[in-house]
């Protein structure tokens, strides 16, 4: 043996195992806020996925008699009552989860992909690339989010695609700035210097070391952005910028459609509103507790 055996140091015996992820997972499980958020998110996702089987009635056909002056409220057959066209409100709220999830996830993924690409360019190359990308990002961030989304959606012509792209575009600068900042911080760290000195090529340092170590806050931001994406989608739909198809049960649109009946059937506004709150709250709680679990500053 090259060195005396006595020099061989025993490695800590306890099976802590794995990486930092496991540590974060443990803290997440002990946090009641995280559990509440996870339950709400699970409820939302399960409803969204299983809506066709959970819903008692078809979402797009009248199932009862309504007139503008008498819209039946909640009853044993129709838990949330009927809407202004005689469709089952409960069914429509369940199906609405499905649309919200699709719009939220697609717009999030689009925005994240675009934003991360911009952030990666700025963070990896620095210099004038960084300058140009970040000035564009600053310009985008200087316009209020929903106003910007309305502008983009209106430019693209209303429709679900337009809504998703609009929300994605609004979220892009947030991710770009976040990733770039993280990468700049990581770039100055000792392990990057160490990798450089053992001859690791720049591309591998950026993609193999700096990028993975910069992604944690992106995951947190992604969870939080899902909440705002759902709210924004509802907002755009409420303003009439979503699909024109009245058979699509979209929460924001349902809110808009029930405005006229607010005095006769106020509950029609309450149910989709509550649904939006539950979905957004779930992702916000989960995102915040993820941030706490992953951020070393909060470690106890």
């Amino acid at each position, binding site marked *: 043996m090259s*060195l005396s055996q006595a020099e061989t140091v025993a490695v800590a015996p306890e099976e*802590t195992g794995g990486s*930092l992820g496991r540590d974060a997972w443990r803290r997440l499980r002990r946090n009641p806020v995280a559990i509440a958020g996870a339950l709400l998110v699970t409820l939302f996702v399960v409803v969204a996925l299983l809506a066709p089987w959970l819903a008692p009635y078809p979402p797009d056909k009248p199932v009862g008699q309504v007139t503008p002056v008498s819209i039946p409220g909640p009853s044993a057959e129709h838990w949330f009552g009927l809407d202004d066209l005689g469709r089952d409100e409960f069914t429509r709220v369940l199906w609405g989860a499905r649309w919200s999830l699709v719009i939220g996830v697609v717009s999030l993924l689009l925005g994240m992909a675009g934003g991360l690409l911009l952030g990666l360019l700025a963070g990896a190359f620095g210099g004038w690339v960084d300058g140009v990308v970040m000035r564009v990002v600053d310009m985008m961030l200087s316009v209020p989010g929903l106003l910007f989304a309305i502008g983009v959606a209106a430019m693209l012509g209303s429709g679900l695609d337009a809504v998703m792209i609009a929300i994605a575009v609004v979220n892009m600068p947030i991710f770009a700035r976040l990733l770039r900042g993280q990468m700049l911080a990581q770039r100055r760290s000792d*392990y990057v210097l160490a990798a450089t000195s*053992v001859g690791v*090529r720049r591309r591998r340092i950026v993609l193999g*070391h700096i990028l993975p170590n910069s992604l944690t806050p992106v995951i947190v931001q992604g969870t939080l952005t899902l909440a705002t994406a759902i709210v924004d989608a509802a907002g755009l739909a409420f303003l009439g910028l979503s699909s024109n198809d009245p058979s699509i049960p979209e929460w924001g649109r349902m809110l808009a459609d029930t405005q006229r009946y607010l005095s006769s059937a106020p509950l029609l506004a309450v149910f989709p509103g509550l649904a939006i709150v539950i979905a957004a709250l779930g992702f916000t709680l989960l995102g915040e507790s993820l941030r706490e679990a992953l951020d070393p500053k909060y470690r106890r």
Partner: protein
Amino acid sequence: MNTPTGPAVPGSPGGPPDGSAAPGEPLLSVRGLKVHFPIRKGVLLQRVTGYVRAVDGVDLDVGRGMTYGLVGESGCGKSTLGKAVLRLVEPTAGTVRFNGVDVAGQSREGMRRLRRHMQMVFQDPLASLDPRQSVESVLSEPLRAHGFAGDRSRRVRELLDLVGLPAGAAARYPHEFSGGQRQRVGIARAIALNPELIIADEPVSALDVSIQAQIVNLLEDLQDQLGLTYVVVAHDLAVVRHVSDVIGVMYLGALVEEASSDELYAQPLHPYTIALMSAIPIPDPEVEERRRRILLTGDLPSPVDVPPGCRFHTRCPFRQPTRCADESPDLREMRPGRKVACHWAEEIAAGAIRAAASAHDPTATEVGTPSS
């Protein structure tokens, strides 16, 4: 003893890199090295308003198989000097020749290849390891980067054995180790490519005192086994004395004295070194009682605003009315093997000039500690 050198990396035999040095030429030769960091002000048009002169003209030679110790207060530029030699920090001026090859003239790829022969051990072992990388991955990365042809996992186990870690450590992550173990991983990474020169930047200062000796011994064992040349940067005089053959004392970005370790400790010549040495406690209560400590007054001047003349004259207890404030002393060879940057070194050594009384003022600050 097994063969510690391991299989050579193809395309670059274990010997010196291209442009091999003339016999007798030192492995590392630094001339007039300067690293100045610009200070920028302004939002849109960033104007350079000054420079932090972290390293301000350093000459030094390190012979093959030697250990060169660099000491000085924190902020004196010793770490920056170490990084500038590897071009991990870009030098502003001066030359670094490694094995006869001009380091500054290398392209990015040339530098990447050259760094195979010169490696670094970092001060903070945890920060120097990617938290998402297992030890196996940390140690095989340099092998992969330089196209190591042999069995990588065997080489990893060999490296772990060399630094005294069990083979089972390969599957673990940095946060699962203690500080000393992490530094062993850092050292294993540094020797993975059979380098000739290792720059150790405060290799033990982040560790427990009880662990420091183990790491120092490990570095010495590896030097014997692998024929390494070290530049050890440290502020701990005891550590530097223990490991170094030659010691350079830095003050505000420049070398003020250079001598063999024994001579430097037996008779420091530069006033700054004299003050540093007088601060070392002696483990004998009677001697300690009578020990004369020279306390330096004032703070370390800012490297943005280096004093004119001798850079130490603002705090020097031996300051003379002439020359010190207006004439910058060169690092001159006072006698063979002893270099000192002081106009009055001979007179001080002969006892003709004594430290000013005010420098013994007990209320004055001790060397290296900021005044309260």
